[in-house]
């Protein structure tokens, strides 16, 4: 009933609006066509809006520039930032030339009844120049960009500290490579129990296989005590599955070379990312479910984590968390790693704290992480 009423009221309302609208058109005797007057008004408005757009632009910069990322905290960061400033400078200059030109010309040549436009079809010389100049500028910009890109992707990583960044819905985990600086092999099929990242080692294999065997024994007991044929079938199926799983694990284990198994032993798994300042790190990214993206804006680092493959990114942090707090005059500041590829409903809250500290602090912290060493799991 209420709804019908609302619809009726809406109809009456629209009808009234139409009437008022038509009457006002009658009273003001508006002709429904462009006139010198409307051209003039809109021309002025265009001029004002051009000015307004520039004013808005400068206002935003004045107001919000401080809230954008400022200091880069990695070695390659300033190189990117220089390229950024150059490109941004160029863009802004072009914006500040073209916008006034567009709105200014629109205002200046606003239509008048007695005016006639010039018949100009083209101008080869002019067109040549405004093709050639952007082309030259762009070539310079492309070259500059590619040089920077090359510096970032072709770093010497032979002595970088290797850390695996492992993504899953909706958290990050880090795996340090340990004293040998080599990560052991890992696979999602080994994920289970305390072995969150599926690292393959003698220990994890034994743990998991014994867990599976225990389950199988229990199921076999259930099978004996069960009377219901449907239930029996279900249990048999479960047992088959577990047997298969066991076989897979053994296959993976056997095909893992000995040195890989050994290098897994000293890997350390952590929920917080600690980085020694001034030391190059090589992140190796993995994901267990969907694509995530590790985004560390302060370090100018971003790389997707793709299930089924590994990706990597090398960089050197240059400012410790403590120094950054001082620099920004903000005691609560922390570096973070965000997830920057839509990955599910808690995508907006997938984060890991990142702490950059001195070598000694880092070593001291690492000492405390012994219980998450693969060999101690």
């Amino acid at each position, binding site marked *: 009933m209420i709804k019908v009423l609302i619809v009726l009221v809406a109809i009456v309302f629209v009808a009234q609006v139409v009437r008022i*609208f*038509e009457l006002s058109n009658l009273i003001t005797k508006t002709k*429904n066509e*462009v006139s010198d007057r409307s051209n003039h008004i809109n021309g002025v408005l*265009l001029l004002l*809006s051009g000015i307004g757009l520039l004013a808005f632009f400068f206002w*935003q910069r004045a107001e*919000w520039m401080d809230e954008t990322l400022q200091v880069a905290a990695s070695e390659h960061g300033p190189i*990117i930032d220089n*390229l*950024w400033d150059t490109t*941004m400078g*160029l*863009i802004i200059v*072009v914006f500040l030339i*073209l*916008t006034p*030109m*567009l709105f200014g*010309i629109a205002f200046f*040549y606003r*239509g008048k009844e007695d005016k*006639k436009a010039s018949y*100009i*079809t*083209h*101008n080869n010389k002019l*067109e040549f120049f*405004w*093709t050639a100049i*952007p*082309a030259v500028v762009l070539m310079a910009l*492309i070259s500059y*960009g590619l040089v920077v*890109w090359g510096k*970032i*992707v072709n770093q010497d990583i032979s002595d970088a500290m290797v850390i695996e960044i492992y993504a*899953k819905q909706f958290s990050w985990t880090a795996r340090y490579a340990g004293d040998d600086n080599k990560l052991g092999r890992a696979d*999602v*099929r080994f*994920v289970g129990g305390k072995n969150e990242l599926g690292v393959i080692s003698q220990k994890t294999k034994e743990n998991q296989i014994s867990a599976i065997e225990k389950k199988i024994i229990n199921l076999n007991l259930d099978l004996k005590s069960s009377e219901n044929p449907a239930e029996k079938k279900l249990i048999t199926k479960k047992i088959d599955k577990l047997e298969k799983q066991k076989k897979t694990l053994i296959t993976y284990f056997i095909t893992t070379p000995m040195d890989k198994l050994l290098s897994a032993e000293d890997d350390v798994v952590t929920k917080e990312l600690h980085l020694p300042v001034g030391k190059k790190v090589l992140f190796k*990214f993995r994901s*267990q*479910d*969907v694509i995530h993206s590790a985004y560390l804006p302060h370090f100018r680092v*971003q790389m*997707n984590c793709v299930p*089924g*493959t*590994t990706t990597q990114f090398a960089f050197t942090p240059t400012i410790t968390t403590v120094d950054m707090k001082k620099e920004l005059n903000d005691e609560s*500041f922390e570096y*973070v790693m965000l997830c920057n*590829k*839509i*990955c*599910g*409903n*808690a*995508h*907006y809250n997938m984060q890991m704290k990142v702490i950059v500290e001195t070598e000694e602090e880092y070593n001291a912290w690492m000492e405390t992480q012994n219980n998450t060493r693969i060999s101690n799991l």
Partner: protein
Amino acid sequence: MSEHGHHKENFFSKYVFSLDHKMISKQFLITGMVMGVIAMVMSALFRIQLANPGESNSILSTFLGRWAEGGVMSPDIYLSLVTIHGTIMVFFVLTGGLSGTFANLLLPFQVGARDMASGFLNMLSYWFFFASCVVMIISLFVQSGPASAGWTIYPPLSAVPETISGSGLGMTLWLVSMTLFIVSSLLGGLNYIVTVLNLRTTGMSMTRLPLTVWALLVTAILGVLSFPVLLSAALLLIFDRSFGTSFYLSDILVQGEVLSHAGGNPILFQHLFWFLGHPEVYIVLLPALGLTSEIIATNSRKPIFGYRAMIGSILAIAFLSFIVWGHHMFITGMNPFLGSVFVFTTLLIAIPSAIKVFNYIATLWRGNLQFTPAMLFSIGLVSTFITGGLTGLILGDSALDINVHDTYFVVAHFHIVMGLSAIFGMLAGVYHWFPRMYGRLMNLKLGYIHFWGTFICAYGTFFPMHFLGMAGLPRRYYSNSAFPMFDNLVDINEIVSFFAIAGALIQVVFFFNFFYSIFRGTPSPQNPWKSNTLEWTAPVERIHGNWSGEIPAVHRWAYDYSKPGMDDDFVPQTVPLKKGEEEHH
């Protein structure tokens, strides 16, 4: 050829299963507008969420019902709204709605044909489009929610329902809908191409075609070449989802279970998707540029500056658009050298784009500008094309993309350069060709109110987003409150949301004007804008076959405005060259 005017029409053959390009174009327009309203309301809803994270809001519970229990939107529905908003805007409004409306209306008229090459395929094209819209709408109501993996539907998120609830039935319907849409777009595209190539009237050489026709032709070619790739990507995804194949999936562990998929690669999907996806942004943009070329020339009372350069840059953009898709994938772990190649090709696109901008400005220069609403929206397009295009130089540069990939900087960039430009172009087209569609004029004053409101709100909404992005705020975030580093962005978010909602409200003026004018607008003269192109030589009444007599022959290009030595400041294409008159261009 009067037999065209004479066969009996009933309600169904006239308004529903019409074969007439003019009617089909209206069907596309109205459908596109309805979809546009839906997508716009969605954006207003999720902007409310972003401006007031976690606060209860009765508007949300009214619109969203159980998706916003107690007035608080759930993260799942947030992602669904973003996904469906993007999908509808890009495909249904700015591809189906824009190309469908204006290719249908203008191609036969402007090349001088009685109708499309195949009226029947044309009708099918609309009804496939309609069906795909219906399926997409239905998907909004399924229990597990509509698709929510983003409009780019990257697997595994889109492939594995356990990872997000929208990837259940909602995703299936999304894929069905898109498949129907692709069929529609291919049927339409082939038809457009054939019409332009084969049905041009006497004298209408390719270099006499109005730029609208060139733009729509190249758009259709882009669509025909790229949509099949999206179709194959979608089909493989359907296989992975429903038939256990592993094209995109490998080594996946969800909810404690390892899936049986092995050996696939999710990045393959991205390559296929963006091989369509990048040309798609030009499928959206080129028709808008074509329409405004025509509108700006007409209302400047001046030839379009650099006609041949305009055609050349359309072709260059179209060609380049097929070899730049990797700029969406710089940080997927793609080979860095390949990344470099994509940087190179991407930044090259700036050249033809710059040429187009310069030509527009040069066309305005020394003109006698008639500020109709269509003209204002066209000038608005040039402005947004400049503002949004420039930030492409940042996103196309792989090293800089590391900073802002997938942040609000991207949202700002593509909304301005693609969203706003194309919407402005489309609105300009509606204002300009409304008399051709409905035989009446839209109200001028309301048009002005609509333009100024929209223009201001558009910049107010999207310009500040650059700063959000430069502060590192990722897109597709349901809330920014999980990270203290974003706490001081609240005021920017509030400004954005204010303008977004105001901008949505101002569209009411447009819809009122549109529907009011259909029925009660001032009757239009045959050639209200004193334009040169052929559609204005046909009578105002809608007749089958467009012209009651012979199809007119064409003697000159479309841009003889203010030509010296002529009586009027326009010379329709049908007027023969005078003795000794040169055809400039």
